[in-house]
């Protein structure tokens, strides 16, 4: 079993707001992330897949194909978008890095034909990242 990680970047804006919380609660829990005008990040996404090496090609996965899937399923949908307003997963859900990692996993799951999705890692900042392994 070999693990392969592909890295890519996207930039997006978001804000954190729960309509069931009072303005004071939103401010207390989410701090400056609660500013309804939003703010943005340069996100770095690392997608790790695992699988056996194909003896004919020497590949776990065709990187070109993986790149195309990442671009189509994730980057095209998220890059230079407002997560709250333009990405359907976040119409009802707060676009935290935790939820973003889960959403990206769900977008990729089932799209890989050869290798198995192992981990989605999303860096919101160089000093903050979230890992999701598809666990309940």
């Amino acid at each position: 079993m070999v693990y392969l990680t592909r890295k890519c970047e996207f930039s997006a804006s978001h804000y954190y707001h729960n309509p069931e919380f009072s303005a004071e609660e939103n401010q207390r829990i989410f701090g400056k992330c609660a500013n309804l005008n939003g703010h943005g990040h340069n996100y770095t996404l690392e997608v790790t897949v695992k699988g056996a090496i194909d003896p004919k090609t020497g590949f776990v996965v065709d990187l070109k194909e993986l790149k195309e899937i990442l671009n189509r399923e994730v980057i095209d949908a998220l890059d230079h978008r407002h997560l709250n307003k333009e990405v359907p997963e976040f119409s009802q859900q707060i676009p935290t890095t935790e939820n973003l990692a889960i959403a990206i996993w769900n977008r990729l799951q089932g799209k890989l034909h050869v290798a198995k999705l192992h981990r989605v890692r999303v860096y919101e900042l160089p000093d903050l990242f979230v890992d999701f392994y598809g666990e309940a």
Partner: protein
Amino acid sequence: MKVHLTRRYLFSASHRLHCDGLSEPENQATYGKCNNPHGHGHNYALEVTVSGQVDPATGMICNLSDLDRSVQSEVLERFDHENLNYRSEFDGLVPTTENLSEVIFNILKQSFTAAHLEKVRLEETMMNSFEYAGGAELRV
């Protein structure tokens, strides 16, 4: 949905690797220049990984500001700009980064309870790093 969150912090400290149970030549042979008598320092990078279920109301496994506050008060204020050899945590314990990783994990295990502490990862320099998960195997 169980999610892992990692936050990175920086602190600087000095230490000298020296074991009282070894002779001077043995200390020198074991620790090399890390045994020089007046110690030396590093800029340590600490990564703290916690895990938990995402709270649907907040989208978070824990509030990052609570984690930052715990690490600040329990770890960074304790060790930043300190000489590790003179700290009580290293009474009878050589302040290698292996031991420092265990010490920090155990401190955070006691003080931060808002999410499950998975592991700490400590970079001593850009060229070496240490991870401790409370005795558990590390996850790829």
